[in-house]
């Protein structure tokens, strides 16, 4: 039996376990959308308002499920609108398969209507991409795309399919295999790492997104306990241990906890697990190594010795490496160091606040969430406050744009995350700036009946940039005061959602515990424009430069 390319796409999606796709139709994907119409019982298509947000939704879906998210867009503007979403997934190592249509093969390279060379455009922001030239390749390419997206260090893969290939017919015995090269992981040699850990007096674990991706929370906790080492996290790794674990120091880096900054400066061994020493997490990488040795474990060989030179490099799956370390290492107690950890953690205690502030807002909303509630954020001050104050309990409950820092990520991510969680109540913390970049997706949330709780940290300014302008640019508030007159509560209602303006904690409590309607709810929370995210280590600085107070 001969199948069309479009039908081959649907078969490949189903074969690879896809039951939900996000997308937006258009001329160059009409054959695929016709097959989606016929296969609606097998694949649920979520129509978004903009392709960028469809990509973020697929990204959020992947972060919650651990399986590749899938997004479909048409050629030209549909494809270019995906670019930010693909880059976002790339920087955060999220498995994503993006399928784009393109003009028919004979029209390629002629600047045809809605033609762009999307494989060239995305080459620097994908793990791999394919331009399908022949329908016989299509099935093998799609299987390879899903395999690549998920294997090793996950990431986005784009498959560009010209419309003529979608229409071309082909039988299964004509399918060709893709020839791709990838080196197998070496057997990790842990002798030197074990020696350094045994010799260390003050070891500190720095855990990242790799530990979350590997699902290695239990092994991480076991290692921390076995060797008496506190754990600090990059933002991407934050959820690997519950917030209230005694050895959990919270997030490190520019807006990290004081305890992480202090213990980092005191440790004599840093055990880095699935991290890449990003400038936001590591700060000054020249002074970084002073007085300490570094063991760097990562599945991606190219990450080791990239930003910070390691004394011991271990390439491998972090979960497997942790399992081996647990077998090889004895129980080591370091009472003094653990005592110091407990003492340092007292520095992170935040006093209660009775007014509506970022802190009291987050604590109040947290009280209304369960350990499984999926939390999405946008980018800016509200994002950092969420990392600092929200008591995350489990992996795959935090959807945030780490590497790319994409304002506007949140709405799409919350939609994808909510669907992935089985349409449970999902919270989006956003700012009035970020929300403005993707609020049209309220339409999607309403048409999908998603119980999103959208909490806007509305301070009328682009707060993070304003904070930098206050601190480093003599309060020249260049284009960061929004001066908008948007009524978010009325806007929510216009989209068919619920909305409320919140000016006090009591009002917030009432809104949260009112019977939840089956529609998205926007809480427009009024906050002071001069709240700062603190503590802060200025860019390129170290713990000596830590700012803990305003002014």
């Amino acid at each position, binding site marked *: 039996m001969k199948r069309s390319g479009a039908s081959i796409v649907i078969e490949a999606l189903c074969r690879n376990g896809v039951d939900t796709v996000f997308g937006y139709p258009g001329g160059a994907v009409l054959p695929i959308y016709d097959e989606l119409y016929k296969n609606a019982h097998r694949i649920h298509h979520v129509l978004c308002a903009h392709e960028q947000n469809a990509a973020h939704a697929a990204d959020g879906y992947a972060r919650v499920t651990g399986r590749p998210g899938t997004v479909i867009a048409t050629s030209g503007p549909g494809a270019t609108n995906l670019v930010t979403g693909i880059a976002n997934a790339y920087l955060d190592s999220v498995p994503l398969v993006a399928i784009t249509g393109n003009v028919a093969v004979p029209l390629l390279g002629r600047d045809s209507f809605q033609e762009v060379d999307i494989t060239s455009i995305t080459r*620097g922001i994908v793990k791999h991409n394919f*331009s399908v030239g022949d329908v016989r390749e299509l099935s093998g390419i799609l299987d390879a795309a899903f395999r690549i997206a998920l294997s090793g260090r996950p990431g986005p893969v784009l498959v560009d399919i010209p419309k003529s290939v979608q229409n071309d017919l082909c039988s299964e015995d004509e399918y060709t295999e893709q020839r*791709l090269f990838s080196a197998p992981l070496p057997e990790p040699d842990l002798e030197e790492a074990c020696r350094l850990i045994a010799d260390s007096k003050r070891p500190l674990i720095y855990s990242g997104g790799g530990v979350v991706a590997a699902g290695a929370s239990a092994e991480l906790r076991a290692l921390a306990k076995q060797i008496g080492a506190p754990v600090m996290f990059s933002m991407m790794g934050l959820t690997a241990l519950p917030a209230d674990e005694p050895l959990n120091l919270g997030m490190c880096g520019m807006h990290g906890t004081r305890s992480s900054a202090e213990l980092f400066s005191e440790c004599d061994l840093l055990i880095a697990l699935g991290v890449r020493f990003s400038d936001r997490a590591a700060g000054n990488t020249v002074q970084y190594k002073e007085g300490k040795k570094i063991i760097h474990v990562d599945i991606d060989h*190219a990450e080791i010795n990239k930003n910070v*030179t390691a004394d011991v490099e271990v390439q491998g799956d972090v979960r497997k490496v942790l399992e081996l370390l647990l077998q090889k290492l004895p129980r080591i107690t370091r009472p003094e160091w653990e005592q110091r950890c407990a003492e340092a953690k007292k520095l992170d205690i935040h006093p209660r606040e009775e007014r509506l502030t970022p802190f009291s807002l987050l604590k109040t909303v947290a009280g209304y969430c369960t350990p499984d509630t999926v939390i999405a954020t946008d980018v800016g001050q509200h994002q950092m406050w969420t990392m600092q104050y929200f008591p995350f309990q489990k992996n795959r409950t935090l959807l945030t744009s780490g590497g790319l820092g994409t304002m506007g990520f949140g709405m799409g991510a919350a939609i994808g995350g909510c669907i992935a969680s089985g349409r449970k109540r999902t919270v989006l913390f956003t700012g009035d700036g970020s929300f403005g970049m993707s609020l049209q997706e309220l339409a999607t949330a309403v048409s999908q009946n998603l119980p999103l709780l959208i909490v806007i940290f509305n301070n009328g300014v682009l707060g993070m940039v304003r904070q930098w302008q206050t601190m480093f640019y003599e309060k020249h508030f260049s284009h960061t005061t929004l001066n908008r007159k948007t009524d978010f509560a009325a806007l929510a209602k216009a989209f068919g959602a619920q909305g409320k303006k919140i000016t006090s904690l009591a009002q917030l409590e009432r809104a949260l515990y009112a019977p939840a309607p089956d529609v998205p709810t926007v809480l427009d929370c009024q906050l002071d424009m001069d709240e700062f995210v603190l503590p802060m280590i200025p860019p390129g600085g170290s713990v000596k430069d830590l700012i803990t107070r305003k002014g």
Partner: protein
Amino acid sequence: MESFTIELTVSNSCGVLNRITGIYAKGKHNIDALTVRPCSDPALSVMQIVSRGDETVQRMMVRQLRKLFDVKTAVLANDTTL
């Protein structure tokens, strides 16, 4: 800055050179010389790329090139002349 040559065996298909030069361009490493020639296996090509950089750069380039799914092998050649 030290000149270094990386020898690669790569898939003989369109877009591969773009992917490889992209790795160099990303870190602002100029390519001083480049050869591509066919191989006994028609599905593969052999490349030699001359660039400049210290040991850290050289190691990073090799590791990043090896991540590409079109790259079968990438090794640092001792001989820095083509």
